[in-house]
């Protein structure tokens, strides 16, 4: 399931090395987080710009408020002027001066923000209206002046609202700023305008004894405007107290005066002014309206900076937010990169550790595994690897132990083999010595016996000779006494000698002793021929005489079992190591004799191989019991023997085989159970050069 799902990813990852893998992961991580950061900061920046635009709105409106107040003041004085107050002219001029100052300050805001707030045109028109109004300020009729003033004020108020709209102040839904904005930009200025117009109504009313119906209507309209506005402001202040408590201690007092003075005016209006029997004389003057107007403008003056401050704080916060986002993202990215780096480094370390261990293991240098520190899946691999390495190490040790053991066994085997070969040599030496001892002891037996007897006979002969000398002396000297006795003794002695055939025997004894010593001499010669002790090197020998010499050595074994028949090709010479070659022949002759049960025949043939005159062959045939077919292939194997334990080492034929092999020849066997066995020993007449060197340390 997992593999099916991730097969494509695995396919990709399998092609990359770890650096590439991590690079890919990092890049893929950077792209979305960068984008996200971009989006978030852009969003915040927009918010900041949005709020900054609000600030421009506030600045603009604060400037407009001065202008607005100054225009109202101017209207106030112009009304007085037209009503005939001579002092008003100077006040109008002062007010105009104020207005010009306010115009300058609005101009400055307009230059900065007019375009952005899209109010430049409106302001321009207001300035034109003002210029027109100002140029004929003293010459207009009162109605015309009032109309123009009112239009100017209402245009300014409209501009204030447009500025608020265009500068997002109206749109800003932030509950903290909304009510402040609502009070300053909409309610309070409109309320003061309504109060200001009421003030002009009141002024006019005070000049008449009785309130005219149209005046009454105007008052009602104006108070109808003021009352809901005041109620809205109170409501807004309440809201501020609820939602934005930190600023309520500042907002609340600024409004208290407005509220109480407005309430006072409304109350007075309802109880006094709007009474049908209105008598304005009762100490009622314009101040009752001047107080709320001033308080309203104070509310603006107090609250506008608070609003500005709030927005500025918000902007500051947003800017900080951006910084925090950027810094946070960078920190997270750095941290992630660090972790990935650590991951990569851990992977690389583990892998390279394993690689090192593997390499050392491979070279057979290491004897202990390295601790893998990671605990993750790679660590698991490492631990598995360690297990493998451990088992390899122990296997290695086992193998090493085995090797040592095998070497020891081999050495032992070689030693045993050497000992066995030595044993076989000693055995065949013993056999040879036995044969020789027998062969030599036989002539020695009669030679010694004859000589011993000769010593006895010699005494008898000496005695006889003594008697003859005695007789001769007597005869020469003519002694007659005892002569007869001497002759008789001599005759007896002679008879005795004759009877015991002493003289005859002596001759036989001596000649036979001589024959015996000659036999021994011959044997020694054959022994030398056989052993070739003085010819350890390669020599060209007559195979026939080598065979004869060996036959003498083997005679002891052969003679009571077999008759030997020879069929020699004359002068069959061949190059060989004579002692080794004779050892082979002796081995084969002994085997042949031992194969014979009862009496048999051993036939020895020598010839050059037909068609291959470079090979000299000795064929040794016996009429023994023969070798069973199943044993024929084994007879040249070491330790194969059919003799009883202790009677044969089973090495004779295998050694013979080796010797002949080293001569560049071969031993072949043909056998049939009941008929007998033929051995063919082939050796080259001339030894190849290499063989001459190699064959030397044989057996």
């Amino acid at each position: 399931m997992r593999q099916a799902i991730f097969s494509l990813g695995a396919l990709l990852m399998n092609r990359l090395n770890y650096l590439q893998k991590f690079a890919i992961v990092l890049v893929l991580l950077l792209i979305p987080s960068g984008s996200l950061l971009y989006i978030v900061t852009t969003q915040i920046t927009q918010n900041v710009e949005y709020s900054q635009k609000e600030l421009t709105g506030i600045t603009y409106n604060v400037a407009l408020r001065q202008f607005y107040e100054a225009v109202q003041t101017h209207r106030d004085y112009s009304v007085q002027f037209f009503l005939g107050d001579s002092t008003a002219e100077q006040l109008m001029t002062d007010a105009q001066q104020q207005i010009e100052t306010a115009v300058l300050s609005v101009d400055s805001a307009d230059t900065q923000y007019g375009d952005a707030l899209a109010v430049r045109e409106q302001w321009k028109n207001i300035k034109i209206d003002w210029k027109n109004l100002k140029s004929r300020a003293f010459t207009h009729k009162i109605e015309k002046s009032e109309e123009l003033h009112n239009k100017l004020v209402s245009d300014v108020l409209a501009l204030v609202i447009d500025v608020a709209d265009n500068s997002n102040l109206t749109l800003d839904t932030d509950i903290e700023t909304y009510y402040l904005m609502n009070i300053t930009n909409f309610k309070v200025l409109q309320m003061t305008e309504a109060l200001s117009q009421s003030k002009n109504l009141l002024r006019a009313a005070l000049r008449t004894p009785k309130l005219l119906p149209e005046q009454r209507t105007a008052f009602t309209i104006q108070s109808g405007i003021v009352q809901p506005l005041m109620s809205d402001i109170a409501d807004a202040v309440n809201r501020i107290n609820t939602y934005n408590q930190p600023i309520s201690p500042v907002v609340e007092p600024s409004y208290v005066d407005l509220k109480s003075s407005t309430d006072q005016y409304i109350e007075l209006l309802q109880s006094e002014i709007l009474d049908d029997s209105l008598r304005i004389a009762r100490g009622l003057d314009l101040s009752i309206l001047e107080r709320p107007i001033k308080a309203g403008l104070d509310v603006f003056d107090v609250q506008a900076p608070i609003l500005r401050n709030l927005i500025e704080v918000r902007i500051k916060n947003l800017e900080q937010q951006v910084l925090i986002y950027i810094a946070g993202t960078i920190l997270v990215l750095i941290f992630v990169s660090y972790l990935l780096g650590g991951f990569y480094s851990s992977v690389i370390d583990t892998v390279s550790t394993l690689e090192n261990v593997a390499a050392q293991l491979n070279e057979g240098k290491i004897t202990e595994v390295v601790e893998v520190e990671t605990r993750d899946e790679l660590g698991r691999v490492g631990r598995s690897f360690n297990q493998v390495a451990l088992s390899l190490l122990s296997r290695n040790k086992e193998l090493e132990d085995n090797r040592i053991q095998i070497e020891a066994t081999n050495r032992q085997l070689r030693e045993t083999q050497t000992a066995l070969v030595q044993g076989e040599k000693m055995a065949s030496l013993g056999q040879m010595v036995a044969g020789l001892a027998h062969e030599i002891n036989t002539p020695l037996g009669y030679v010694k016996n004859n000589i011993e007897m000769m010593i006895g006979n010699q005494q008898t002969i000496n005695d006889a000779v003594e008697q003859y000398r005695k007789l001769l002396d007597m005869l020469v000297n003519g002694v007659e006494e005892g002569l007869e006795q001497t002759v008789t003794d001599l005759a007896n002695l002679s008879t005795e000698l004759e009877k015991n055939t002493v003289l005859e025997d002596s001759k036989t004894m001596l000649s036979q002793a001589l024959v015996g010593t000659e036999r021994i001499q011959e044997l020694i010669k054959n022994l030398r021929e056989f052993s070739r002790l003085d010819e350890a090197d390669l020599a060209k020998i007559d195979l026939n005489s080598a065979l004869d010499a060996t036959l003498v050595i083997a005679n002891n074994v052969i003679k009571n079992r077999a008759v030997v028949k020879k069929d020699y090709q004359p002068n069959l010479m061949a190059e060989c190591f004579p002692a080794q070659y004779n050892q082979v022949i002796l081995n084969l002759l002994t085997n042949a004799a031992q194969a014979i049960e009862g009496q048999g025949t051993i036939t020895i043939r020598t010839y050059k191989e037909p068609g291959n005159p470079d090979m000299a062959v000795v064929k040794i045939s016996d009429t023994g019991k023969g070798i069973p077919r199943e044993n024929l292939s084994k007879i040249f194997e070491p330790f194969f023997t059919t003799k009883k334990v202790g009677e044969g080492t089973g090495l004779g034929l295998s050694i013979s085989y080796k010797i002949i092999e080293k001569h560049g020849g071969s031993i072949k066997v043909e056998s049939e159970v009941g008929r007998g066995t033929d051995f063919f020993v082939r050796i080259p007449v001339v030894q190849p050069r290499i063989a001459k060197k190699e064959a030397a340390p044989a057996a």
Partner: protein
Amino acid sequence: MSKNVIEEKSNILFVDDEPMILSSLNMLFKNKYKVYLAENGFDALEIIKSVPIKVVVSDQRMPGMLGHELLRQVKEISPNSVRMLLTGYSDLDAIIGSVNAGEVFRFINKPWQGEFMLYVVKLGVEIYDKVTKLQETEMQKQDDAVTEEHPVSGHRVHIEVEEASPTVLFVDYSEEETGRLVDKYGSAFNAVAVNSIDAAFQEMAKKPVSVIVSNINFGDVDGVSFLDTVRREYPNTVSVILTEVKDAQLAIRSINELNVFRYLVKPMPEDQISHTLEKAIERSKAFKATPHKNVLKMAEEISPERMVRNEESTLRLRLRAAQALLAKNKK
């Protein structure tokens, strides 16, 4: 040697495939004996069959028939003929063959000492004469007794009451081995196993032992000397050597000094051992019934001059000590 003694010369036979040997021996003996010569076993057997031969001296290795085979046949044809082997080189097989099959009296190596040869042959002749004479008187006695009951068949004599079970004493060095042998043959006869020479002496002092089966590898004591001591004290006890020692010299000594009945080399099939033991028991009975069958004893009676070696006398002392101990215990 003197002319005036008209005396029939004793017939002796030499067999050797080497004519020179025969010729030489002939010259050595022809003045005192009637010497017969044969170059092979078959000729020798012909002579034996036609003439009573007192002493046969044969070579071991001869074409056609080995010396010990010839002597085995001689023993059958003419049991009283004293048989000797004269050989140029003695391998153990030949020696063991000659004792086990041919029951030879002497084993002589070539080259021989003329004097010794004369002595040994003379001894053989005398043994033959004595045995034959004893046998004849025996026959005479039996002929007299024939009318009574037993026909001359099977065992010739029943002088003693036959023991219910003859005793066979196994002397070996390993207890485990003796134990095993007793387990094997304990039922056929009364088998006793001991593991030391002194224990063997004590056992023999207690009751007559028909056959002693012994190793010859005791370490401190030469086994042949041990058996020799036994033989001298108990001439009717038949000795069998059962050993893993393959020593030709010891084997020759066991023939010449002990006239050992059999020389068996381990490992030896069990049935062969038990067969040998049966034969040995039979021989022991024969020794008791007719002492002249004990050829060595005869030889000693004829020619008592034999060297007594130190070791032998020590052994004799140990034997006496064992006997004394037993006598004391009996009291």
